[in-house]
């Protein structure tokens, strides 16, 4: 009998498998495929203080072993979420986390406060990869100063588990993670999408309306794994690893590299039941290897 539970600084999960924001809707879309009681939690869509229509179509391009997206945080705003969506999903038999985004620090704070008022949401994941409109559109999360400011501001008002989702489009993700930790983050999740681009050579046009977009899927796994490894050497707070995880084996690699839990993203599009399968697969791996608790895997990479 494997103990699959993990505890992320007060956030208890029955197993280390979460679904990544933006790839699992509000969970309801996957109800036919996943038994929510078999996964650690879901992280719902990026939510902003105000309604956002997102970017124009086309928003997606398939790439080798991956995809680019440029959805642009389409959502109906935090108040709509709290009133209309939350009541439908609050009693789901798993942890429901909300991914919080913004264009200004004030927006992040206001959004986090609304989500905090929802009893059954035990944590938020702060998306710091959004462009800061007051800083010429550079993402908050690509400088230590930018991430410190937004994490500190949210930390002041948000008293549950604060997970900060890191951008991989940086020179030193370890420095960024340390800044998030110092500013009060309870955990860091990584990696968000790598910035990429796709072109239609025949039409001589970008494939995305926004020219560039976020790359995800199996193709980014080596980069994600490396960053989890680097961050695990730099911070004490728990790490939630994501980036191309498509199987239990992938998930175990992230745990070994230093993650305490993992998120499944793009793979949900290919196999909508994958999150449950990965959770079962992690347990089977532990059984096969005689590992009593999944927590023993975290950082257990042998590098002598």
């Amino acid at each position: 009998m494997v103990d699959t539970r993990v505890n992320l600084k007060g956030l208890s999960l029955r197993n280390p498998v979460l679904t990544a924001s933006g790839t699992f809707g509000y969970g309801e879309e996957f109800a036919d495929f996943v038994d929510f009681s078999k996964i650690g939690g879901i992280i719902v869509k990026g939510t902003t203080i105000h309604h956002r229509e997102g970017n124009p179509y086309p928003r997606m391009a398939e790439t080798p072993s991956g995809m680019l997206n440029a959805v642009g945080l389409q959502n109906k705003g935090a108040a709509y979420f709290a009133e209309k969506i939350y009541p439908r999903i609050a009693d789901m038999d798993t942890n429901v986390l909300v991914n919080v985004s913004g264009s200004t620090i004030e927006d992040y704070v206001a959004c986090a406060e609304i989500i905090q008022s929802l009893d059954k949401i035990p944590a938020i994941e702060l998306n710091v990869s959004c462009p800061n409109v007051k800083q010429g559109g550079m993402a908050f999360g690509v400088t230590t100063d930018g991430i410190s400011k937004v994490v500190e501001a949210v930390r002041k008002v948000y008293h549950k588990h604060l997970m900060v989702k890191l951008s991989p489009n940086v020179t030193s993700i370890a420095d960024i993670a340390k800044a998030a930790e110092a500013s009060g983050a309870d955990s860091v999740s990584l990696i968000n999408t790598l910035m990429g681009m796709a072109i239609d050579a025949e039409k001589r046009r970008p494939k995305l309306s926004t020219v560039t977009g976020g790359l995800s899927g199996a193709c980014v796994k080596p980069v994600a794994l490396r960053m989890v490894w680097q961050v695990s050497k730099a911070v004490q707070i728990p790490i939630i690893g994501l980036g191309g995880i498509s199987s239990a084996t992938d998930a175990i690699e992230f745990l070994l590299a230093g993650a305490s839990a993992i998120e499944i993203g793009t793979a949900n599009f290919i196999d909508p039941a994958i999150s449950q399968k990965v959770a079962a697969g992690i347990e089977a791996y532990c059984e096969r290897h005689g590992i009593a608790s999944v927590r023993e895997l975290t950082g257990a990479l042998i590098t002598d």
Partner: protein
Amino acid sequence: MDLRLIDKQLWSRSVLLKLRAQEEECLPEIFPGQFVQVRVDGSPTTYLRRPISVYYVDQAKQELWLLVQMVGDGTRTLSETAIGALINVMLPLGRPFSMPENPAAKLMLIGGGVGIAPLLYLGKVLKDNGFQPQFLLGARKASDLTQLDLYEEFGEVYVTTEDGSLGEKGFVTQHSVLANQPDMIYCCGPKPMMMAVARYAKEHDVFCELSLENTMACGLGACLCCVEDTKEGHQCVCQEGPVFNLNQLKW
């Protein structure tokens, strides 16, 4: 679910895949206009599923037919699936065409290219429910229009081809049958063709439903990639569609 490929038929640019539920399983109820998400195995350049509209369903035989246009490696690989192999599909997805209320309504099902596929099953269900569908099918040339005999089982078939090799020469919107205005139009095809049909429908104030084919990732309304900019904002073609009423669209 995994369906077994029991037969296939190849043309130069498309392939008909006849799938059957495995013995212990049953196809769910499937409505015309809905689609399936097919997993493609064995194509190194294909990462995501491929959305394919439902061509025909025979619940008695537990058969689902897909007419797949070969546009890239993914669909080509799909076309090479061996008879007897299993194909993984998510189904049924999306909102179907609506059924008419007036049993005497003059119904015109207008399709172009591989967009004629969902109209076959729509025609069958309409006829099964006592309506008299008519088909107006267009293509570049005669050989692009496959299996017209199947359509003829369910209603009269009018044809246009751009090169005049079959039916009237020109585009569907130029066909003489449209001089006699239909009450309802159901439409699927390439975007420029659907835009032309939409213009006709607007000009003549005809009820018109269109099936859109935006690029998709999840097929479940989760990723928000396939949105159409409708009068009510961005809506997922995979979930709010693929069938939209013309007056929902900004066209």
